[in-house]
């Protein structure tokens, strides 16, 4: 089994780190993983995205045109990538910044006000962790507690950010689980 998750948003939203944390978690629990960034001029303020491939066997193509899931942190990302997500996947929409929907009926679309939640918790910088947590809780792609461990590890040495991000994890899961699952066609 192979699954691919695309994280997309503005440069500066912690998109790449979000993907890295998922990849790290998947590696820790024994999967083969690859984290593939977009690199280049789009890193500067434009759309940043990365794809995480998780598999139980060696990963072949790192070129993923149709990911299984999408975490969209801003509107251009949702508009650009929602159409290519495979049917049956999760599309997470950062509701705080995205006033539109994916328009897909064959996916599990969840609306998470990641930026708003993070702001309430104390810093919009934690929006990526809110989204990651919500996505992992909803998709079950990796063990939730393992993901929490990976985040904890990432912020070890940056102790003052730890409580914020731990709170972001709880808030993200809550937001994802309180929404009813979309009926997929």
């Amino acid at each position, binding site marked *: 089994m192979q699954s691919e998750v695309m994280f997309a948003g503005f440069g500066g939203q912690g998109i790449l780190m979000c993907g*890295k944390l998922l990849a790290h978690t998947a*590696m820790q629990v024994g999967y*083969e*993983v*690859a984290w593939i960034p977009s690199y*280049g001029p789009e890193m500067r303020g434009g759309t940043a995205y990365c794809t995480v491939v998780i598999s139980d066997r060696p990963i*072949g*193509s790192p070129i993923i045109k149709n990911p299984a899931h999408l975490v969209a942190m801003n509107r251009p990302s949702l508009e650009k990538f929602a159409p290519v997500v495979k049917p049956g996947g999760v599309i997470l929409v950062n509701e705080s910044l995205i006033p539109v929907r994916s328009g897909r009926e064959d996916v599990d679309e969840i609306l998470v006000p990641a930026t708003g939640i993070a702001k309430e918790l104390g810093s919009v910088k934690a929006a990526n962790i809110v989204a990651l947590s919500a996505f992992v809780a909803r998709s079950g792609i990796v063990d939730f507690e393992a993901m929490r461990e990976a985040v904890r590890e990432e912020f070890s040495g940056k102790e003052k950010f730890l409580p914020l991000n731990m709170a972001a994890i709880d808030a993200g899961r809550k937001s994802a689980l309180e929404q009813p699952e979309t009926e997929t066609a």
Partner: protein
Amino acid sequence: MAKVLMKGNEAIGEAAIRAGCLNYFAYPITPQSEVAEYLARRMPEVNGVFLQGESEVAVGYMLFGAAGAGERVFTTSSSPGVSLMSEAISYIAGAQCPAVFVNIIRGGPGLGGILPSQGDYFQSVKGGGHGDYRMLVMAPASVQEAVEMVMTAFPLAEKYRNPVMILGDGLIGQMMEPVEFPEHLRSEPSKKDDWATNGMDTRKSATRNLVKSLYLDPEALNNHNLLLKSKYDRMKQEEVRYESYNAEGEYQALIVSYGTMSRVCRTAIDHLKEEGIEVGMIRPQTVFPFPEKAIHEAASKENCRVVLSIEMSMGQMVEDVERAVMGKRPVKWYGKCGGEVPTPEEIIEVVKEHL
């Protein structure tokens, strides 16, 4: 050691240190600048040398100087930078010094682009600089393999007293994958007292050593070139590396592909298998020396109707594939460049077209 998740570029830097190379000179260029950034931080921790040179031209000669003095040394760059270093590579090969170059290829020609490509196949395999020289060129298909190739590159460079190149592409540099650094690939630098300019006192010798590539006497230069050729011939005997995929049984088509491109082909081959179409693959791990014999034999299998060279370049490796197949089967090329990496779906289409 446990696996760690690392970006290819950073893993390459760490691999050199783990291999026992503590000297690095480089010039920033996308998409490999992370190697320099990583080593700027890491080298001082291990009492190593890190220096950002003023150009790739200068960096090439910093390597020449350091290698000539008998120390392990390496650099990383990307295509336009490697063009500039090619002058030094020719000198280093001519003067028979060991040094390791990593090329994280981007699209060309000229300034090209910054996305992955394999457009430097000719440059690295056929000689980007002047004169009759060759490099031993290894092409990794994963971050782990990049680590292992970097670690083996140093003893190989010393075995042949010749530059060794790791030919990666932007994706190998930018991708993160789990890696480990095999302890057994760490090696002690070889003794270089016979030829290096490490100082007569250092080697307790009364005779000086010369590191040079100048042979004004035609007979001497011819002999020198024959000596170099004998090393390249020996590489062909001893250093060919490749991996076969789905090539044990019968197949209708054979793919030859290397680096990132070969991973895309692997996925395509898996999908084709599900559809009942068997396709084998030979993935050169060394592109010089080229696995000619393996490709010839694989192409000669009874049911194999066509050989496809699939590259992120406009038909470079296909020339070597043709040479290896020697007319036994039709050889076709498919590829894209400039950052457009063919998808598994495209490869599947291409294979079907040729069956």
